């Protein structure tokens, strides 16, 4: 009890400590220099309609690469952590999925895949992007796993796709370094007309690769956790 009280006290103090953030930092009314530049010059420089995408993929491309890497290593790390099967197995009660689930997923999975691909290919135009698309793809896979408890994803295939897409991402980055201003510069391709699918330089390509890679990584994580018996 005493410990809880102390913890409460500490947290209260922490809250007190955070007060300046609430009290002193008032609501923004103006864009700062960086944001201003992104918002005003972004469309011209990169040709992307979705400026958030522009920031993610190009201006802060290295972060995004890092993000991909984080997911990648999370997937690898989970695989690494779970490399040894449990010694004492308590099998979860197995039961096949219900009819509704199966029929529903049969119907939904293609749509979800399509939607996912749409999201990452149109990341530079509309809200969404590689990560979001990838997650939608994964949700399709999750649905599939739920409906077909016995079926397995081809681990080899997902891994190969994942690796290859990762390499492609890097290659595009290098292309940017060689052909344009710097690593991950998306402008080595034509900017094209804003609003078109094939515009904004390499952004759609990058986002597609990201989408595929994120999808595969998340599927990999799901697959590993799924087969895991505790």
């Amino acid at each position, binding site marked *: 009890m005493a410990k809880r009280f102390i913890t409460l006290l500490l947290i209260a103090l922490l809250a007190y400590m955070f007060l300046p953030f609430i009290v002193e930092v008032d609501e*923004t009314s103006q864009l700062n220099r960086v944001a201003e530049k992104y*918002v005003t010059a972004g469309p011209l420089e990169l040709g992307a309609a*979705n400026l958030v995408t522009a920031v993610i993929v190009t201006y802060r491309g290295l972060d995004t690469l890092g993000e991909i890497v984080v997911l990648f290593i999370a997937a690898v790390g989970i695989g690494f*952590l779970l490399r040894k099967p449990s010694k004492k197995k308590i099998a979860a009660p197995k039961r096949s999925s219900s009819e509704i689930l199966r029929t529903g997923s049969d119907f939904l999975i293609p749509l979800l895949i399509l939607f996912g691909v749409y999201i990452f290919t149109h990341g530079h*135009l509309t809200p969404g992007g590689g990560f979001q698309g990838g997650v939608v793809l994964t949700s399709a896979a999750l649905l599939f796993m739920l409906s077909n408890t016995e079926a397995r994803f081809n681990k080899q295939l997902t891994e190969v796709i994942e690796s290859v897409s990762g390499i492609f991402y890097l290659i595009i980055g290098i292309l940017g370094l060689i052909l344009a201003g710097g690593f991950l510069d998306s402008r080595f391709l034509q900017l094209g007309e804003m609003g078109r699918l094939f515009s904004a330089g390499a952004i759609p390509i990058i986002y597609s690769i990201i989408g595929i890679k994120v999808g595969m990584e998340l599927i990999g994580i799901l697959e590993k956790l799924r087969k895991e018996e505790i």
Partner: protein
Amino acid sequence: MTVISILGFILIIIGLWGMLTQKNIIKMIIGFSIIDTGLHLVIVSIGFIKGRTAPIISKAVEGLDTGKNFIDPVPSALVLTAIVIGLAITALMLVYAVKLFRFKRSLQIEDFEELKW
């Protein structure tokens, strides 16, 4: 400050409370997730400017001064990364929980105090 950021901080505090007082590892992880969520709210709230719109050039904003009508895109970009990283960490935490459970058949944090001093 905006309500959202205050809400975010409240979530952070709540999550922290959970993380520091709950003995169950899964509950601690949930606490962490709550912290994370609160954090994301705080980040997003930073970029928000009242009365402005998302920084996507579309028909709705055509012809307007983007600098005056868009909110800050940077926090939106950052929060995406933060979410992904939070996801990764949460996933690892859960896997750790799985592994720990295997050793002791327990999820109580006090059961894992062999290493000390």
